């Protein structure tokens, strides 16, 4: 299990345990962290699971695939630390990861 810290747009911190192999998106949705819609359920088809990864953690993440890059282009208010949370597999190396959730996905 990895401990992931989701911070919603209102500044609330949600510390949740996510099983290795699950996506960050699944960890958030299954633990009722609000603000990640994930309409397509993780198929990288909707760009509604956008998060901002704490810059300190960026080097620990696998790079974006072409499709994630392309879909992110269409998420709202992106930044260099934007990722689609359905595309990030949780591993024990990500224990303590901090991600922030935007105000809206649509």
């Amino acid at each position, binding site marked *: 299990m990895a401990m992931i810290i989701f911070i919603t747009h209102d500044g609330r911190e949600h510390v949740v345990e996510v099983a290795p192999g699950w996506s960050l998106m699944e960890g958030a949705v299954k*633990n009722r962290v609000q603000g990640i819609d994930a309409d397509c*359920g993780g*198929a990288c088809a909707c*760009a509604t699971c956008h998060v901002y990864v704490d810059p300190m953690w960026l080097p620990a993440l696998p790079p974006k695939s072409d*499709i994630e890059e*392309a879909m992110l282009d*269409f998420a709202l208010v992106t930044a260099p630390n934007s990722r689609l949370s359905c595309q990030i597999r949780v591993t024990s190396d990500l224990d303590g990861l901090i991600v922030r959730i935007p105000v809206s996905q649509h």
Partner: protein
Amino acid sequence: MSRKLIIVGAGQAAAQAVQSLRTEGFDGPITLIGEEGYGPYQRPPLSKAYLLGTFERERLFLKSDAFYREADCELLLNARVTAIHRAEKTAELADGRRLGYDTLLLATGTRVRRLTCPGADLPGMHYLRDIADVDGLRTVFAAGKRIAIVGGGFIGLEVAAVAVKRGLDVSVFEAMDRLMARSVSQLVSDFIAAEHAKAGVKLILRTCVEAVEGDGKVERLRAGGKTHDADIVLVGIGVLPNDELATHAGLASQDGIVVDQHGRTRDPAIFAAGDCTRHVGREGSAIRLECVQNAIDQAKHCALAIAGKPKPYSEVPWFWSDQYDLKLQIAGIARPSDRMVLRGDPAARKFSVFHLRDGVIAAVEAVNAAPDYMLGRKWIAEAQRIEPDRLADSTIPIKQIA
């Protein structure tokens, strides 16, 4: 606003409705009634990663149990609504109980169309709609087995791709002259057909299955006058809307429960959302959509109306299919009379087909071309006019075209 709401059906639309109702401030008790033993779960992975075995069942569920508890939503599972009594505003369950409602949401979805030829009820016939179907299919889904897939649509082809990966011998029988004829253009059909053929799938087009034969179980198919040996038959020939509750209650259905732009039926207390509905789409004609997008968006609009904040539904429909390493993404509804513009090169396994109607983008089909799909979706929503020659010129980056 403490009204009692019943949701009949426990799929994607039902889960979204619970979430959106609470977000929009509806504060009455909610009862969600489902026939399966599970709360709402995602169906798209069933024919893909769940069948392959790389996605555990637990991950299919759209919400945690705690979500429903916190939302004050009672889940009535393994329960079937047999009738709606509109005059007394009750839903009758199979066990005879009658539950009162102020507002009712029908999210009953669809059921599979069944094969009706001789032998269609032999053991060894499989359909793919719910978790139990896939669990059943997985028990026989072993390398070396011969699987005959009836129907070359999304379900059949996604299963074909998984079956190849698992080492099965795969044949696909399709009555039409091309694959996914209802959903994609000829160009995309041909491309996908070539990919399946390359992977070793035998495609038998323009061929109806005439009979299933075998001694106490499936052993072969008769199709196009020939016999084809098979250990497993998987049928994916479309779905039918579960509209009987509505029609028996006197509500209109035309291959789909008729609803307005707020998901409301003719009875102001009864709404419907998702695959079971027919609505007048953004293009002005009545349509029944079978997709996650429509289930989510229609449920959101029902919730808005129920919460007293009505907003007409006019979102662009979108669909996707994953086969092998191909991601097919579609937005909008194409018509045969649209002008098609190819962007990119199918040989490079990365291209898109745009559909223009009177010069305006009406639909896009993208294969491994997510930017084209996402921008296309935006253009459709904005009724963007695009110069076809520029669109076809892949030396111009897609973002600089409009």
